[in-house]
């Protein structure tokens, strides 16, 4: 290990930081049932980055010694939906798709920690698929909103009916969107941040 001794470049970050060069990172989660459009949404609005997780072997996962459920490669190394939006002023917004399968739920706590909030994507044909995510964020007190992804040919529903079907509190935003559209995905994220800002302001009063 020679180069760390000789490489003076490693001292530079501290100097840069004095000039305000440290980035600021924030994250928003994209949750919802399988096939509801999480991957599509992350892809339409952000720069997709490959990210693998293999948490089944971490100390936090149950059954490390039990290989019965991990014979297939997909269940061991899991690609996560992960995207990055680089803004001015050194601000970076990260989007993380929360793995939908129940066996990955232990990861949600870590993902939710320090998140701006969560977008729960819903499909009107399968609203029940959103219940688990909504319950999770409600219980945890994580700010969240529901974005109904309107697929081609999907039956149009009155947002008020969807709100009733999902048993949403009145202060939880609900918007209609098409996550294939960058502008639509952007509007969803704007609604998310506006909602959190409104909550912050309300808490201050």
């Amino acid at each position, binding site marked *: 290990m020679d*180069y760390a001794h000789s490489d003076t470049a490693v001292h530079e970050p501290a100097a840069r930081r004095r000039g305000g060069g440290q980035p600021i*990172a924030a994250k928003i989660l994209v949750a919802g049932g399988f096939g509801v459009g999480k991957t599509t949404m992350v892809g339409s609005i952000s720069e997709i980055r490959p990210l693998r997780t293999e948490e089944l072997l971490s100390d936090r996962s149950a059954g490390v010694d039990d290989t019965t459920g991990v014979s297939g490669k997909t269940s*061991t190394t899991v690609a996560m939906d992960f995207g990055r939006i680089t*803004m001015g002023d050194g601000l970076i917004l990260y989007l993380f798709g929360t793995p939908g399968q129940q066996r990955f739920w232990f990861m949600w706590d870590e993902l939710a*920690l320090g998140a701006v909030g969560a977008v729960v994507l819903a499909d009107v044909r399968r609203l029940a698929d959103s219940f688990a995510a909504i319950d999770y964020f409600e219980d945890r007190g994580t700010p969240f909103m529901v974005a109904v992804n309107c697929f081609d040919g999907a039956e149009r529903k009155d947002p008020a009916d969807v709100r009733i079907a999902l048993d949403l509190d009145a202060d939880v935003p609900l918007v209609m969107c098409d996550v294939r559209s960058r502008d639509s995905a952007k509007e969803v994220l704007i609604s998310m941040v506006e909602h959190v800002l409104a909550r912050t302001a309300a808490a201050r009063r």
Partner: protein
Amino acid sequence: MSDDRWLDEDAGPIFRPYTVTRGRTRLRDDSLNLISLLEATGLPVPRRTRLDPEHRRVLAVCAEPITFADLSSEIDLPVGVVRVIVDDLREENLLRVLRPTPTGDVPDELVLRKLLHGLRAL
């Protein structure tokens, strides 16, 4: 777990990434958030410490502050493996963790306003 368990063909590829951590999956410090910023301290590597290539790669990538998620993506190893490597390097004071925002893990109102401004400008 006996050592021969690691050599069993049936174990498949699932254990291999953890060979770079010498099989260690437990952490000394578990406070890493995926958006925590990591930065090399620039301190010399202690003489008794032998760094693996993966450890050196992580140190090199962390010459400038980078989030744990971006680091994992850049190094192209699973998050769980990079977490252990980062933990090793922190233990040797070669790497430090910075909070993602000036006020800590949770974005404050100023960061939220910047975020809103940034999103509207996209």
